[in-house]
């Protein structure tokens, strides 16, 4: 697979741009077209405009070079950095522990704690405590509860699994002495995640 960003560094888009410039001869400068849009131009607007054309990497990189840089005013630069920082903060939430992810996703979807509690058949106070981190998500946490909570919040499953693993990694991680009384609990993060995914599959099969 071609990585356009890498290829752009190893091929020579400048040379292609030079070839394009050189390909215009003196004659082509004198020719004129009518002001009105030609049939071919109309056809191209319909067929080409806005499409994601895959092409050679050097062409894409040469297109980058045609765009001239323009100096950015310091105050605008600051606002752009602030905008990037806001977006990065959102990303950190998505890369965080499970309670942070599920709360962020719930709020982004406009769901209330009530709705999540009703959908998951969990007590609203329990959902609130889970979101606040008052109750830790670790290997001792009931798998059915975690699966029901996840099911009630619309969020990318891959992100959920990553966040769940992180939560399991920082919480109780299966010390055998502490396991007394929870003998049937999954013994490690991998098993726990598998159990949650199996339970989620069961929930999602239910009408």
């Amino acid at each position, binding site marked *: *697979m071609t*990585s*356009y*960003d*890498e290829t*752009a*560094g190893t091929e020579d888009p400048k040379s*292609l*741009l030079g*070839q*394009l410039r050189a*390909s*215009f001869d003196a004659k082509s*400068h004198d*020719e*004129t*077209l009518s002001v009105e849009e*030609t*049939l*071919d*131009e*109309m*056809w*191209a607007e319909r*067929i*080409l*405009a*806005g*499409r*994601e*054309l*895959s*092409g*050679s990497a050097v*062409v*894409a*990189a040469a*297109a*980058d070079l*045609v*765009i*001239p*840089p*323009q*100096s*950015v005013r310091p105050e*605008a*630069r600051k606002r*752009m*950095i602030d*905008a*990037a*920082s806001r*977006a*990065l*903060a*959102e*990303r*950190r939430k998505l*890369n965080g522990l499970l309670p942070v992810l599920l709360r962020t996703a719930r709020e982004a979807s406009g769901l209330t704690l009530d709705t999540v509690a009703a959908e998951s058949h969990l007590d609203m106070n329990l959902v609130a405590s889970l979101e606040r981190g008052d109750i830790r998500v670790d290997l001792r946490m009931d798998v059915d509860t975690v699966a029901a909570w996840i099911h009630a919040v619309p969020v990318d499953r891959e992100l959920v699994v990553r966040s769940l693993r992180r939560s399991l990694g920082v919480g109780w991680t299966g010390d055998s002495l502490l396991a007394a009384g929870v003998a049937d609990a999954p013994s490690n993060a991998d098993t726990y995640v598998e159990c949650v995914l199996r339970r989620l599959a069961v929930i999602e099969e239910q009408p």
Partner: protein
Amino acid sequence: MDISELIEQLKRGEDSAGPILVSVLAPRLLGYTAMIAKDLPLADQEIAVENAIERAVVRIDQYDSSKGTFAGWVRGFVRFAVADWRRQYADGAPVELSREVARVGLTTPDSSEDGADDSPPGIEAGVSTLVLALPEVDQLLLRLRYVEVLPHNQIAEQLGITENACRKRLQRVLERLRLLAAADRDFDQYFEGDES
């Protein structure tokens, strides 16, 4: 730092990646905005870039380096921001949002009513195949006009040629492309009779 490393930092949400991203991309994004939206006041061009940067970082997981350059991908968000600006503030200006929305992976509340692209599956690949049959210099010209949506006069200015020369040359490229399209039965069948 190379681009792929910067992208990984952005994906991880590292705060230090923000200023680097702005340093690397903002000058050309602003230059690009000035090319496609000369009528916008500078402050609004800057806001378009600001919005584009924010949207790109939020959706960085969707960037696929096998489909184009990172800078090219972010320019899609600039086009979206400019179209959005026109829709909000410039009464009557023609706006074609649907394809841009689809291309940069955005959804808007009204995107379903915005006129989705009704091309059959695979038509994008078909168009790409036709374009790939052209010499690279011609591909570049088509990309500048129809993917980057640069006006003829802006392309001409950057290439150091006249606007007439630019348009005439594009006209010849399009004639060649239409011949190729006419020879492609599937392609021709889909678009047959759909011309003015």
